[in-house]
């Protein structure tokens, strides 16, 4: 049985990374708007998850947001486009870490199920 709430949150967590990487390579404003939106949604979906590592997951999501929002401002004011891309790379790293933690959490959850 697939848990659809889990599909939703995992979908947005993965999409946050992919859209972010997309922006780094294309440098396209449309992609940046998508990346910011998706990252914000991924953050919101991590609220209140009562699992192990939930605090760390939320922290990485907030890090990604705090990279991308300044990046958006810098990019559209056309002052420091390079810095904007750099910040997006930082956000992508945070996204990648959050995916690693997601995988660790999945492994833990399976081993817990075996315990019972």
């Amino acid at each position, binding site marked *: 049985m697939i848990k659809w709430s889990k599909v939703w949150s995992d979908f947005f967590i993965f999409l946050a990374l992919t859209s972010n990487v997309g922006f780094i390579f294309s440098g396209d404003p449309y992609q940046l708007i998508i990346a910011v*939106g998706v990252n914000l949604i991924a953050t919101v979906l991590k609220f209140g998850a009562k699992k192990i590592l939930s605090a760390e997951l939320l922290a990485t999501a907030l890090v990604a947001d705090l990279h991308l929002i300044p990046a958006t401002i810098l990019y559209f004011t056309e002052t420091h486009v390079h810095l904007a891309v750099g910040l997006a790379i930082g956000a992508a790293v945070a996204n990648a870490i959050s995916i690693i933690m997601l995988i660790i959490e999945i492994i833990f959850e399976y081993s817990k199920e075996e315990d019972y």
Partner: protein
Amino acid sequence: MEKNHRRRKGKPYGNIKPKNYRAIYEEKFYDVLLQLRYPLMTIIFFTTLGILMLMIINQKSDGKSVLNYFFHTIITFSTVGYTEGYDTEHLEINRLFTSIFIIVTLPLVYMYGLVSIVNVFMNGNIEEIYRYWRMYKRMEKLNGHYIICHFNEITKELMKQLKKRKVKFVLIEPNPDKEKEIRDFGVEFYVIDEPYKRDVLLGVGLENARGLVTAFEENTQDIAVIVTARLIRPDKENFYIVATATNEESAEKMKLLGANEVIIPSFTVGRRIASFIFHKPTPILDRFLERIAYGEKTDIDLIEVAIDKDSELANKKLKEIKLPQQTGTTVVAIVKNDGRMKISPSGDTTVSEGDHLILLGHPKALKRAEEFIKKHQIEKTEV
């Protein structure tokens, strides 16, 4: 697998984790936050969609335009209805998109999203959750406290007395209907839960508690609590359990199962009434007895000391022991080995091994007497 087995065997009362009352209310707070997920997601999703669509329609992606599109999306949601603050060559298609966008997003974002968020904060009982959380956070730090089971007239009186002497206690009451009454009574720490569960007793700090009082109207409930508590704290010396019973049979059973003291309220009251009939109460004597029994800041007390087999004091006359001169206490009675009681013994009375002396005096003097008797015991065994 082996590791699991060992973990389960670890404690004599089973592998039970204490119920964490603070964490329960922390989780309730997270549940409130959890309700914000979908409304917030809706708002973010449609804001992003609005900006993107306007960028695509107008073929503009410079900073000024994007800011304008963001502004336009927000004023659409908020139904402020500000005129489009941007230059455009595609006025018609912009208006078409915006019309459709408003039709779809107004109910979703404004009605569902924003209203749900306000609703969560209005009905989320955040204040209530915080109150419980703070109480249980402080409860975790308790040490040397008493645990009281059931809220009734007996325990109410007990709690009044404990409060007067600033003794901390945690009340466990299984009936949730009594919560308001408990709160009005001013109980500092309480838990609405079943007191005969191991995790509940561990959760209220049974392992650090000094004692437990259980005063249910039903003997079976008392017995369940006594057995569970004794299972976790098997040491009768260091963990004191007092219970009430409705009849003698149950009282005996409770004592066998681990209660230190069992009181049968009807017996106690009956005897007290009888004592009023047989001994006409005089105000002074009455106050004297009250002071011994329930004294506030007791300056007089009664204790019982045993004369062991190895004691130097055995087979000596009371006047040779000189207890009043040595310690300042009075021997009120000697309880012989067979249970006979000799009231107000004379100086010529011989104390034999196995006797129990009942001493009256100031608490400090009684402590001295206890040490005195212990000293004579130890010296003999050391030689």
